[in-house]
């Protein structure tokens, strides 16, 4: 099933335009939503997840008119917000049972079966009797996935799930997502380019409430082929170079010299060498040029 977002707009009371005529079409598989903090990713995710009303626009998922039949979408939705808490002093098993209930699994045996299953998937089975409010960040995120899976969702929305996870947790998390993504539509927002690179073949880049780029990783990097240049400079020369060239990223070497990457139609200067475009370049170039590039 395909998710179709048209002309979605939202302006907050304080005047911030969180969504500015967003149009997106997302098919099955893993879809990455990349953007800096405050780009409007969470607003978009919450709106798709029926938790926030837009000022205008429409969302269609398969034959569900999401904004007018919210419960129809919720039935097949799995949502993991950026931040969440849980009722204190309840164990993972109790809480999952509670969520299974909320998700309409009326049969007690069914609930037991599925709760056990998701506990195993998320490797929380050994901790099922511990209170979730006392979980570490990674375990809590796993719990988040567990509750998400209970209704076997067709549309999965995960909002910046990897922030604050240790590498092992992050890996495991991405693996699980990948497993699910094989069968369903998964929208995955993050500000970490690597997440998207590893996981998604399709992505969108958002900033200031607008979608700036929509395509696959390949399309992105291909469009930059021959336009990314790099050079090693001294720290002291950075300001001078920055004034001349369109530097899209720079990082330190151990000897306090800098590697800079520059976006330019052709060789900007003979001191530069050509570089293979990476997703990161796409991201920075898109943000930097900040114009609609769909």
């Amino acid at each position, binding site marked *: 099933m395909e998710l179709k977002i048209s002309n979605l707009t939202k302006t*907050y*009371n304080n005047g911030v335009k969180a969504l500015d005529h967003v149009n997106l079409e997302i098919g099955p598989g893993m879809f990455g939503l990349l953007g800096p903090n405050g780009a409007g990713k969470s607003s978009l995710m*919450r709106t798709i*997840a*029926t*938790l*926030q*009303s837009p000022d205008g626009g429409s969302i269609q998922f398969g034959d569900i008119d999401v904004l*007018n039949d919210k*419960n*129809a979408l*919720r*039935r097949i*939705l799995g*949502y993991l*917000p950026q*931040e*969440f*808490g*849980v*009722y*204190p*002093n*309840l164990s993972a098993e109790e809480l999952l049972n*509670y*969520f299974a*209930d*909320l*998700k*309409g*699994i*009326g*049969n007690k045996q*069914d*609930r037991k*079966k*599925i709760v056990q*299953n*998701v506990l195993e*998937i998320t*490797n929380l089975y050994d901790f099922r009797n511990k209170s979730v409010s006392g979980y570490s960040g*990674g375990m809590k995120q796993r719990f*988040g996935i567990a*509750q998400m*899976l209970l*209704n*076997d969702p067709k549309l999965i929305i995960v909002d910046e799930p990897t922030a604050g996870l240790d590498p*092992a*947790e992050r*890996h*495991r998390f991405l*693996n*699980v997502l990948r*497993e*699910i993504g094989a069968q369903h539509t998964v929208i995955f927002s993050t500000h970490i380019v690597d997440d998207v690179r590893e996981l998604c073949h399709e992505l969108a880049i958002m900033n200031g409430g607008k979608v700036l780029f929509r395509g696959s990783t390949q399309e992105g990097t291909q469009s930059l082929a021959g336009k990314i240049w790099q050079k090693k400079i001294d720290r002291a020369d950075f300001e001078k170079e920055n004034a001349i060239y369109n530097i899209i990223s720079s990082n330190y070497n151990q000897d306090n010299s800098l590697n800079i990457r520059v976006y330019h139609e052709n060789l900007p200067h003979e001191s530069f060498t050509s570089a293979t475009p990476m997703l990161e370049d796409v991201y920075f170039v898109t943000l930097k040029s900040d114009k609609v590039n769909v």
Partner: protein
Amino acid sequence: MFSTIFMFEIKRWLKQPVFYVYCAIYFGLAYFTTISNLGAFDAVTRTTSDPVFVNAPINIAGFFNSFSTLIYFLIPTIVGASVYRDYLYNVHTLLFSYPLNKLNYLSAKFLSSLLVVTFIAFLCVLGYYVAQYHPGINVEMLGPNNFRPYVEGFLVTVLPNFILFGSIIFALVTFSRNIYVGFVFVLVLFLLQTLLDVATQNVDNRYLVALLDPFGFEPILYYSRYWSVEDQNTNLLPIKGVLLYNRLIWLAVAGLIFGIVYYKFSFSQLGLSFKKSKSGERMTKDNFGSILRIDLPKVQIRYNFISNLKLSWRLSNTDFKFLIKNWTFIILLIIAFLFVLIIISISGELFGTSTYPVTWQVLTAMGSMYSFFLNIMIFLFAGMLLQRSRQTNMFLLIEATAVPNWVLLFSKFLALLKLVFLVMAVCLVNGILYQAYKGYFNFEIGHYLYELFFLNPLKFIYLILFALFIHSFFKNYFVGFILCLIIFFGIPFLSKVGIEQMIFKPGSDPSFSYSDMNGYADIRHFIYYRIYWILFGIILFGLTLLFWRRGIISNFKERLTDFGSRLKPSVLIPILLALIGFLGLGYKIYAENNIVQPRYSALEKELQQVDYEKKYKKYDGRAIPRLIDVKVDMDIDPKKRDFLAKGKFTYVNKTSEAIDTIFMNLTPDLKIAAKFHQPSDLILKDSVLAVDIYKLKTALNPGDTLRIDYTISNAANGFLFDRSEVLENGTFMNNMMFPVLAYFDDGEIDDNRVRKKYGLADKPRMADPRDSSKLGNNYISQDADWINFEATLSTSTDQIAIAPGYLQKTWEKDGKKYFHYKMDAPILNFYAFMSAKYETRKEKYKGKDLEIYYHQGHEYNLDRMMASMKKALDYYESNYGPYQFNQMRIIEFPSSMGTFAQAFANTVPFSEGIGFIAKVDEDDPNAVDYPYSVVAHEFAHQWWAHQVIGAYVQGATMMSESLSEYSSLKVLEHTYGKDQMTRFLKNALDSYLLGRSSEQIRENPLMFNENQGYIHYNKGSLVMYAMSDFLGEQKFNDFLKAYASKVKFQLPPYTTSIEFVDMLRPVVPDTLQYLIKDLFETVTLYDNHIKDVNVKELDNGKFEVNINFLTSKYRTDALGKKSYEDVKGTSLAHKDGKKTVNSLPLNDYMDIAIFAEPIEKEGYKVDNPLYLKRIKVDKINNQIKVIVDKKPIEVGIDPNYKLLDQDSNDNRKKI
């Protein structure tokens, strides 16, 4: 640093919208209450009137006290949370890394929040003050305004309490990091206040209570409790003695607590927790690199109506568990449990004698307590449940599932309903435990279940729906909570603005009461109202759903959009159905109350009184025919609860003029038909004021007889309630149903302040006894003297019907049982009809039949009652003259009709609540046997009322109530000994003093009392007892006998208190003549107290006791203004330190006593006088020296409270 934090906090509050909400609410409440007290709404309701100025200093303090009580609810959030807030928002990790000074930090936090609370209190004061300039108020209710009482009131009752409770709550919340702990403390405060109110009614040592009361109002009452109206209007607050000590003690406590907070507080601290820390466990992860195949089992997902209902139930279990595991709930429940135990053990008492803990009584006492707690819990927990998912930040997870809104809301409702049932179950257990503890094993489980699990939940269902509705609009559930409380407690006050009908006051119902005799009677009245409000609650439920917050709502417009998009048939149809039901039932109730029978508002009733007087006063005092003979056929139908009375009344023109106009006063709301046996025309029918006027075709000449037959039945019982007074078991009706052929000046407005408003001339409540034209009626009847009486009653076959007279015959016919009663001698025009399933106890004593008709199971006190009748009969016959009947009957009636007993000729209806279930502690010599005393009192009325009856003028009740009360005291004294009297007399004195302080019109001397209870019962019994004590019992009783034999069964003009006093005067020796003036003719009080006492042990082993006591006597006018000069203008004065004590000239006798260690009688202490002597006192300051044999421990002036002393608590002094 201090000022930085202080100013920051203040500014923060000024930016909070909630601060302005509080300000507006509290200012508005204060303003509104005050203008309402000042009669601003007199245009829509009954005229407000009070002789004590609204702004009298004592009222100012009282107002401050009650309003600061309301503000206590804000203390946990404002003062309590001031430090806690820094933790809540995690500011502390940042804040405490700065170089803060602990003292600065804490004091700035505390003082700034205290200032905020104080400011709100100040707004209340402002509201109170500004309201006095509101247009349209009755300025006569305002005295001169003075700055001082406001300042003093604020400094005494407001500020110290805020500091004290503020510091306690500050400490509690800071250390527990839980606002609810502070909140529970506020509730405990309320209970403490209630407890103090109850406790002080019985406590002998009021000084101690005054000293320890944390609110600081008891010490004010300690001084002002007995202030007369004049005192209340003029006295400033008693800023002295125990009030000062009290305030200092509690301020010191506050300081101490703040000190503890200072020492214990540490910036890095964690909140205190009650939980044990669990033993640690090392946890390692094992989640590296595995790849899992996700293959979810197929489960059925269902969201149909049935499965949703089941889901609501399961979800409510989670919420319910959360509620009952909550500390707030557990603490509240424990407090409720303890509190109920305390209250119930006090409230089961009357005169120090408890009743058997019958189920209805336990339920009444306990049910209201648990209900109070439940109301609070519902208001609080409704908010907690609604906001819980947001507070724990789990709401996005929940709200992204497909669970419908109604399921979520309904599950909260169910959880709260389960809470109600749980608390009711605790209530049941508590009740049964209490009964068992008291040795009462007649557990009526069915009765418990019906009230606790059916009737009470009907109330709470609505309250839950109401609370959920209010809370759904506020994110901050303290605002929701306070709003719930204010609406809930404010609704009864709607009557003050003229909204009187219950259907317009959300949540109101006619309540219910239970009696062992008649069960819940017409409980349907209650149930219909509850159904009506539940329907309203369902509408609220619908509205709550329409406005339900789901997801992230950033402004109100979005909420409205949501509201609009939810207007779908699935929601609208149920709301519409509930609305139709609500309006339909509401209309039915409205029609029943207003259309089937007209309803008059309080204002309309007042206007009717005015109308009645203006229209018909001209008939007052006209010649009327007088009733001489009554024959009634009374058909009572207990099953249908209807009656049909047919009365054949015979009147005679006893005057010397012809009568052609008959003025007939009817009882409204009854169907009455009058048939004259001679031609007559109805010339006026006033159905509003219930007056008919007939013109006789031929005038009734002197000596002529007029016969009228009345047919009376009750207005039909409606679907909503019974209009008839007939009960299924325990009917008790009196002759008020029959018309009276005279103008009724009882119906006039008494209060001269109100009379003035309507242009009516001032008048006394009763006529002056010196006006001989007013002596034509006795105070029982306006149109009869002594009548012949005969009645035939019919009732269902399982009941006994009773009326005054002797039973002539009884028979059964057509499924009814008939009883024919006839009196052999004329009686007052005062009779009753009773019918119930009675058991009987009959005895013959000295030729008289003594009978008790009682409800099966109420056998507890039959022996006592019987013994009292015998003893009373003996005493009264030998002291006052023969008993006019040969039978005396005590007849029980249901407590739902009231708790009193009333004396008719040979017939005494006696409430089940006043003596039948009394439990007299046989072992305690100080316990008062009140079934015994009430029986003696009512029996005495057979002499003092049914033989000697005063004219309908001032002082009439002295010859009935005062003498009956005296008689009962004497019977008790002769049965139980003099020791019992002290307690009775002190009780009577205290009740008298309390009564006069709340007198609404004027305090009259005993012999001119205007049917004022505190005068004719309490002062009257003291006066008569004192006369008997001073003259000697025999001499006084001989006088009573002489007086009785002179005036008994007399025809008009009837006797008056003047005749009584005139006959008494020659009996009193010259030295005691002052008593007549002091006790009967004027309002005279003493202020006697022991100032000093010291004891020396003498060489011969005896003890020399030196007593210094002060005596002062004064007279007061009708409002309590004191005067110390006699008619000649002489007065005594004495310098006592800085104070000058004044007194009327003295030549008075009083008792002085010295007591040794009390004697132990079977574990109880009884006075043990070493010395008791009546001495003559002629000056204010008195010294006496007495030598006694044993070691004295206490001395007393007038130790047994025989004199009218303005303060009974300083008559005795321990050495």
